[in-house]
């Protein structure tokens, strides 16, 4: 109990300290507003944004394309990963191309995706899906491949058909890896959404950041960035919670270092 209280109070105290330091250093060093806004200015932007409601359409747009793209990317990554891990022929045909595509920075594809899928939500969804796909795909393949050989031969010794071995053994054995991939993909999904909005959009938190740049409204930029932090945090915490719940037989792996 004491641990839980201090693990809440200590970060709150250090946050308070940082904000105070921020507040007072602006006057102390005479930092202009367009470089570093006052905390109060950021808070007032958050207030007009979320209480008066100016930010909501943007927030909803980004959230919606992120979630849709995330689900699309993750489901296809698990499906393609599972097929590839199980079929040598499929692997031989497609693995080289997948590796080639993986080694390309996906962010560089954003302009092309805008050309193909337009300025609306579709291009954002595709960009997010593309970002999510690779880490989860690789994790799914590795997870299925590293299934304990002895568990598989145990199943075979009892005449289990391959489908049963896959659905009752390999998929579960890969669950830890799959959840680690889902976790990495959350952050990548947000990057994808924001980048696509940077390139071409008339809505979204990414667009909000860009339009704040046009009139040097740094305070609004900060408020938009905080919104992204909130989405990212809720996303990763949710996945972590699900990870512990679903893969209850393993100690949940600590969050993996982020690629890209």
């Amino acid at each position: 109990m004491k641990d839980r209280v201090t693990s809440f109070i200590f970060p709150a105290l250090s946050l308070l300290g940082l904000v105070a330091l921020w507040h007072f250093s602006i006057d102390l060093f005479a930092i202009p507003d367009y470089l570093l806004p006052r905390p109060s200015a950021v808070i007032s932007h958050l207030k007009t944004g979320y209480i008066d409601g100016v930010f909501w359409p943007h927030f909803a747009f980004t959230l919606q394309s992120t979630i849709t793209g995330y689900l699309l990317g993750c489901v296809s990554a698990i499906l393609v990963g599972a097929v590839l891990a199980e079929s040598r022929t499929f692997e031989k045909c497609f693995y080289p191309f997948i590796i080639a595509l993986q080694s390309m920075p996906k962010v560089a594809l954003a302009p092309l995706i805008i050309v193909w899928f337009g300025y609306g939500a579709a291009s954002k969804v595709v960009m997010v899906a593309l970002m999510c796909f690779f880490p989860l795909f690789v994790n799914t393949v590795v997870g299925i491949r590293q299934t304990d050989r002895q568990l598989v031969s145990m199943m075979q010794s009892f005449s289990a058909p391959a489908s049963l071995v896959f659905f009752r053994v390999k998929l579960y054995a890969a669950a830890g890896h799959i959840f680690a991939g889902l976790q990495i993909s959350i952050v990548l999904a947000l990057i994808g959404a924001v980048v696509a909005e940077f390139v071409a959009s008339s809505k979204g938190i990414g667009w909000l950041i860009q339009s704040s740049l046009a009139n040097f409204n740094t305070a609004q930029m900060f408020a938009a960035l905080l919104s992204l932090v909130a989405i990212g945090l809720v996303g990763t915490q949710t996945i972590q919670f699900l990870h512990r719940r679903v893969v209850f037989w393993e100690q949940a792996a600590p969050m993996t270092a982020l690629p890209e």
Partner: protein
Amino acid sequence: MTQGRVLEVAGLAVVYQSNREPQRAVENCDISVGAGEFVSIIGPSGCGKSTLLSVVAGLLEATRGRVSILGSEVRGPRPEVGMVFQRPTLLPWMNVIENVLIPVRALGRNVEAHRQQAQDLLKLVGLGTHARHYPHELSGGMQQRVGLARALIHDPGLLLMDEPFAALDAMTRERMSLELQDIWMARRKTVLFITHSIPEAVFLSDRIAVMTPSPGRIEREIAIDLPRPRRVETLASPAFAALCGEIRETFNALAGEHA
């Protein structure tokens, strides 16, 4: 085919293709096990005991020779076989009773119809109250008991046991031997048991086959005629010690030949 023989292995050879030269793991191996008989194969580590068992289980193809179970040749895993492994190899995401029911599921039989039987088997192995536990909540000995119940659920004609107690501590191991004997006497299964422990083999078996290493083959068979049920006191009896001594001598003689 000989009448009453559950398992028949004749002239078995298994050669592993490795990069350098073919490895002869088992050669000219003959053994047969009659109905209701408890036969142990004993031999040093790496003598091909597990290879032999994998072939009998239908997990590994024989290079030469014949293996037949209940009169028909083994070409793959068979429903008449139940196997207990060296490690418990339970699925960690399934609770105990679901793990016991794996062979039923694997054979495409009705799972619900076997649930009561699975519960009875768990009671038989002393885990009647642990059906809803998960493997990580059990000790090594308890996990191995689940493995035994699992190997019995589909009522196999032949029980294969690959050093099932090797990973357990000495105390648990002794108790498990006693329990296994009780279960065997209650169910009268045909058992092929693999071990490298001489006392364990003598305590449990009707007959012991001594295997020589590289390439593995059965060098000698010794009948164990100690009266059953054998008890803890049996372990201290002169007859028991004499049998252990005889097998140990056989081993030493063989080691001299192969050195």
